C-alpha cells in the first residue's frame, strides 16, 4: 500500500494540492479530506467497481487499440459535421482535440460550458472586476455569496479559502453573508469561527437582490431594511468579494443574473474595493477554454467548419449542436459518465473504463484520468493558476492527447478542412 502525499486534485477547479491518497488493491482512497468530489474522483479506481482493463470496442466488439483508432479516424473522415465535445481532459488533451477539430472542421465545446458561459457572456459584453483565491483568503473582509451555496460544486471552498483570517488587512476579521441562498451544513461547520449571516430570498431572484443593493448604495432611503444594511456593510468593507457559482443558477438567461452581480461589484468599487469571484472549473472547463482561446482567438463553442474559427455561444453549445452534428466525438477523461447521445448518429467516446452508456457507442476507447493515470496540467477555477497533477497508478491506459494524436495521424489525407 503506497501513500501519496500532497496530491493535486484535478476535479472541481479549487486546485487543492494537499491530498493524502493511499493506493492499494481496492484502488485509490483519499484519506485526508471528506471532500466528496475528491473521494469520488480518486475512488473510481477500485477494480471491484470498474472494469479495470476495459479494452477498446468497435460496435460493441472488443478490438485492439489501433483498430479502434482506425475506426474512429474513418468515421471522422466520413463526417460532414462532426462535434468534438465533452472536452473534459487536461491541457494536452485539449490541444490534441483542437488539432483534430481543425483537421475535420468540427464544432468544439466542453460538457460544463453552460455554467462557464453565463459568466463569459457578461465578460464579453461588459467586462468585469474579479479576483482570485489567494486574494480572497488574505484580503477579503466581507464575502458576499450570491445564490445557491457554491459548496455544492466546490466542497472545500470555505475550508481552504475563507475560514482563516485575512492576513493582509489591518483588522483581520472576516464576515460572510449569504444572499438568497442557505449555507450548506458543511459550510456552517467550516465557518464556525467566522461571522455568518443570511439575507434570505428566492435564489432565482438573486439578480434582483443585487440590483436592489446597487440602488441602495446610491440611495438607501427606498431599500428594504436588510438590503439597506447590507449595502452599507459593502460600502464600509475594505475588500469585499462577491462570489457565485453560475452553474447553480436556475432558469433561462441566467447570464443576466451574473450581469447584475458584476454591476454590483462595479458599483461598490466606486466607494471601496470590491471584486467578483465567478466560481467554475469542473473537469478542467477553464483550462479547455483557455487553450481554445489562445489557439483559436475565440473561446469554446466554436466551429472550425468554415476554415477559420467562428464563435457562437448559442449555435455551437454542444447540447444544441448535437442535433445538427452527424457524428459526436465525446471526451470524458475525468469521470466514467457521459450524456445520452442521439440514437441516429455515430458516437466515438474517449472515457475511463467502466463508463456506462445508454446505447453502445460506435467506438469506445478507454483513456486514463489526468492526475491519476498520467501527469497533466489543469486550470484552477479562478483562471490564473494552472496546476500540475501527478501520476499515481498505472492501469495501462493511454492519455487522451496520445489517442487523439493517433486518430489525427490515421485520418484520410483529404479530410483537411481548416
Amino acid at each position: 500500500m503506497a501513500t501519496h502525499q500532497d496530491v493535486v486534485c484535478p476535479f472541481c477547479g479549487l486546485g487543492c494540492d494537499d491530498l493524502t491518497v493511499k493506493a492499494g488493491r481496492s484502488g485509490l482512497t483519499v484519506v485526508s479530506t471528506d471532500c466528496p468530489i475528491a473521494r469520488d474522483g480518486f475512488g473510481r479506481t477500485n477494480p471491484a467497481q470498474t472494469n479495470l482493463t476495459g479494452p477498446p470496442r468497435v460496435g460493441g466488439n472488443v478490438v485492439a487499440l489501433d483498430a479502434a483508432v482506425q475506426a474512429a479516424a474513418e468515421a471522422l473522415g466520413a463526417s460532414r459535421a462532426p462535434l468534438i465535445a465533452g472536452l473534459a481532459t487536461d491541457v494536452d488533451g485539449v490541444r490534441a482535440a483542437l488539432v483534430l477539430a481543425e483537421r475535420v472542421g468540427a464544432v468544439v465545446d466542453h460538457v460544463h460550458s453552460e455554467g462557464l458561459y453565463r459568466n463569459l457572456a457578461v465578460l464579453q459584453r461588459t467586462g468585469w472586476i474579479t479576483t482570485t483565491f489567494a486574494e480572497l483568503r488574505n484580503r477579503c473582509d466581507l464575502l458576499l455569496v450570491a445564490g445557491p451555496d457554491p459548496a455544492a460544486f466546490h466542497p472545500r471552498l470555505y475550508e481552504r479559502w475563507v475560514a482563516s483570517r485575512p492576513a493582509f488587512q489591518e483588522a483581520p476579521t472576516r464576515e460572510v453573508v449569504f444572499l438568497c441562498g442557505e449555507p450548506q451544513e458543511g459550510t456552517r461547520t467550516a465557518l464556525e469561527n467566522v461571522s455568518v449571516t443570511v439575507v434570505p430570498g428566492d435564489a432565482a431572484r438573486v439578480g434582483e437582490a443585487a440590483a436592489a443593493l446597487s440602488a441602495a448604495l446610491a440611495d438607501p432611503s427606498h431599500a428594504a431594511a436588510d438590503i439597506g444594511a447590507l449595502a452599507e456593510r459593502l460600502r464600509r468593507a475594505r475588500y469585499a468579494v462577491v462570489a457565485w457559482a453560475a452553474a447553480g443558477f436556475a432558469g433561462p438567461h441566467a447570464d443576466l443574473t451574473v450581469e447584475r452581480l458584476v454591476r454590483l461589484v462595479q458599483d461598490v468599487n466606486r466607494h471601496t474595493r470590491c471584486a467578483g469571484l465567478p466560481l467554475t472549473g469542473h473537469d478542467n472547463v477553464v483550462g479547455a477554454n483557455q487553450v481554445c482561446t489562445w489557439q483559436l482567438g475565440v473561446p469554446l463553442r466554436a466551429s472550425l467548419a468554415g476554415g477559420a474559427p467562428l464563435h457562437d455561444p448559442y449555435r455551437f453549445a454542444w447540447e444544441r449542436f448535437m442535433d445538427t452534428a452527424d457524428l459526436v466525438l465525446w471526451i470524458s477523461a475525468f469521470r466514467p459518465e457521459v450524456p445520452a447521445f442521439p440514437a441516429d448518429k455515430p458516437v466515438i467516446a474517449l472515457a475511463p473504463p467502466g463508463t456506462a452508456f445508454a446505447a453502445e457507442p460506435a467506438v469506445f476507447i478507454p483513456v486514463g484520468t489526468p492526475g491519476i493515470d498520467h501527469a497533466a496540467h489543469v486550470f484552477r477555477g479562478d483562471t490564473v493558476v494552472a496546476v500540475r497533477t501527478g501520476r499515481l497508478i498505472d492501469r495501462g491506459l493511454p492519455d487522451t492527447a496520445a489517442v487523439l494524436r493517433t486518430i489525427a495521424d490515421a485520418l484520410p489525407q483529404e479530410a483537411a478542412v481548416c
Partner: protein
Amino acid sequence: MLTKLSGGRIYDPANGRDGTVGDLFVRDGRIVADPGPGAVPDETHDLSGKVVMAGAIDIHSHIAGGKVNLARLLMAEEHRAAPVAAEGLCRCGGGVASPSTHVTGCRYAQMGYTAAFEPAMLPSNARHAHLEMADIPLIDTGGYLVLGNDDLLLDLLASGAGEEVVADYVGWMLNATRSLAVKAVNPGGINAFKYNQRRLNVDEAGPFHEVTPRRVLTALASAVQRLGIPHPLHLHGFNLGVPGNVEATLDSIEAMDGLRLHLTHVQFHAYGAEGDRRFSSAAARVAEVVNRRPNISVDVGQIMFGQTVTASADTMAQMGNTRLAHPKKWVMMDIECDAGCGVVPFRYRDKAFVNALQWAIGLELFLLIDDPWRIFLTTDHPNGAPFTSYPELIRLLMDRDYRLAKLAELHPAARKHTILETLTREYTLGEIATMTRAAPARILGLSDRGHLGPGAAADITVYTDRPDRRAMFATPDLVFKDGRLIVRDGVVVALVQGRTHVVEPAYDPAIEARIGRYFEERIGQRLRHFRIGEDEIRGGDGLVRHACRLPTDPPGAF
C-alpha cells in the same frame, strides 16, 4: 549539412559589419567560420545585393498569459471581424491586436522576427504563460517575472530584510518560474490599489506594508545586480499615461544611483503638464538624461493609430483609463497576492490631440536618444499598437519625408507641441539592425543570438533593399530559424518550434523555508507544486539557459 549564404550585404553590428559584402556558412543550426575552399556546401543561397541581418528580437511584447487571453475574450468583435483561415502550415486562428498563438508566431516570422519576449509574467500565472508560449510556433520566447507588488516581497522589505535576503527571494522565484528577467510594474502601486488607493507617490509609504515605491525599486534593481542577471531591472514606471509623469520617470533614474535600469514603454512615461492643454512632450528631457547615463536603457512603446487593446498588470493605471475604453468595456483583476491585470480596449485617433502628441513623443524619443544600443523598437504590443505595425514604424524612423507627411495629417495643435519637424535624423540600416537584433540580444544576455558571428544560432533574415522601408521590412525574402528556412517571400515553408530562454541565478537555498511557509499559509499552495519543472517547458525540449555574471565580473554599464 553545410549551407552557404553567399554575397549578401551583412549588417551585423555586434561583429562590426555594416553592410559589408560577404558569405555566411551554417552548419547544424549554427553559424560557422568559412570552412575554406575544400568544403562543398550542400545548399547555397545567392544573396547578391540582398540585405542580411540576424533574426529580429522583440524585447517587449505581450504575447501570452492570462491578460492576453482576457484581451482575446474582450476583443470578441475583432475576432469576429478578423478570423484567420489556415494558410499552409499556419493553423487557423484570428485577431490583430489580440492574435491567437499561431497567428502570433507566423506573423512574427513573416516579418523576420525569430524571438519575442513576454514582459509581464506573474508568478502565479507563469505556468499558464509557459503553456501558451509553447503553442506559439517558429519564434523563441521567454518571460520576465513581475515582482514588486507581491505581498511577500513587501513583507520582507517591511520587516527590514537585507539585500541578500531579497536577492535570494528573487533568485528563487526566477528559478521556480523559469524566467529570463525581472520586471517591476508600478512597484507598490498595484498592491496599493488592492487597498483602494488610486495613486501612490514614489516616496509615499504604501498601505498595510508601509513600504515606499522607491524602496521596492531600489531593492529589486540591487537584487538583479547582485544575482548577476544579464537584463537590468525592466521597469514599467510610475503614473503611466498621466500628464507630468516625467518627473517620476527622471526620479526613478536618479534613484538607481548608477545601478542599471531598463525603462520600458518610456513613451507612456515622458509626459509633461505644460502648455494650454496641460499635456506636453517631455521627450527631450528624458532623452537628455538617457544620453548622459550609460546605465539606462529604454524601449519606446510607440503608439500607432487605430484600434487596439491595452493589457497591463498595472491595475492602478488601467482603472484610471477605463473611462477611455473603446469599445466601452474593460476587465480588472486582482491576482494571487502577487499583482493584477487590467485590460482596456483602446482606439488611438490621429485627430485627437492627446493621441497625436503621444505618437510624436514616441518618435521624438527614437530620434533624440543617440545610442541605438540602448533604445529598442517596441509598440508595447498590443498596448501602443499591434506588433505588425513595426514595418510602418521602421519607415517612419528611416524616412524623414514620409514622417513629415504623416505628421501633416495629425491634429494641428499636436503639431505645434512637437519638435518632430526639426528633427532630421534618419535611422540607417545598421542602426535598425542594432536596435532590433544586436542590442536586444546583448541586453538580455542571449550571447548566441542577435548576431552572425561563428557560434551564433543561425537565426537569419534576408531582405531586398527597397526604398520603401515599410515594404522591405514587412516581407523579407528569406527567414532562417536555427539554420532552417522557415519563411520564403512571406510564406511559411517549415513549421519549427522555438525555444524558451531562462536564467538560473544562484541563491542561498535557506530562503526556501520562508517562502514555503508563506506559500502554505497565504497562497494556499505547496511550494513543490508552485515550482515549474523543466519537463513542463515545451515538454522538456527547448529550455535554453543563459549565464548570470559572476560577482567578480565588473558591474555597471554595457
